[in-house]
């Protein structure tokens, strides 16, 4: 069966510090991978998605970047965090080339930038 791991679960970082959140998927090959942010009282905002190694699509201009160094690894990064980067970050995967695009989410990372 497929599983998705996301860590850390909680992170408190000072403004201006770097960020690295990691997500890995097991039990499937060549998944589509996604990073979302959910701010308090707001919906899920798609940040990045990837259909393959090194292929990253950015949805919103921002202080963040994403990388996919391996087939089942997706990393969200920032060089210098802003207060506005606080939120709940979710990684998700879906089956490749599947029209239904059902997404399976990780447990999320609660990021607080102080």
């Amino acid at each position, binding site marked *: 069966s497929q599983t998705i791991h*996301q860590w850390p679960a909680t992170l408190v970082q000072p403004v201006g510090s770097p960020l690295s959140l990691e997500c890995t998927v097991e039990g499937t090959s060549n998944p*589509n991978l*996604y990073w979302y942010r959910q701010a308090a009282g*707001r*919906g*899920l905002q*798609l940040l990045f*998605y990837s*259909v393959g190694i090194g*292929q990253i*699509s*950015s*949805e919103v201009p921002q202080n963040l970047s994403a990388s996919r160094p391996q087939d089942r690894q997706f990393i969200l990064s920032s060089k210098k965090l802003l207060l506005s980067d606080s939120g*709940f970050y*979710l990684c*998700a995967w879906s089956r490749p080339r599947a*029209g*239904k*695009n*059902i*997404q*399976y*989410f*990780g*447990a*999320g990372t*609660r990021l607080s930038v102080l």
Partner: protein
Amino acid sequence: SQKIEQNSEALNIQEGKTATLTCNYTNYSPAYLQWYRQDPGRGPVFLLLIRENEKEKRKERLKVTFDTTLKQSLFHITASQPADSATYLCALDAIHNSGYALNFGKGTSLLVTP
């Protein structure tokens, strides 16, 4: 612009009653519509998918309807239980920079009281 609208007000119902949640959309021509459940501090979990040519879909106590003329989906939970308390999100496929990804509504919070 594309919009997915869910009732932002929380829905409070008594145990045993049927909960009905609404999802309205504009400027989409979806082939599918999906519903997810999200518990506090957790990632969303896929519940049901309904195709554009399906009027109704059922899974245990859950029922989803899809009216492409009204551009609306209704999500029903029959014989509701306190364990059904959560936020429910609807989602639609949308074209993004280099492929399809999901757009999510902001969700409706459901509280089932004993």
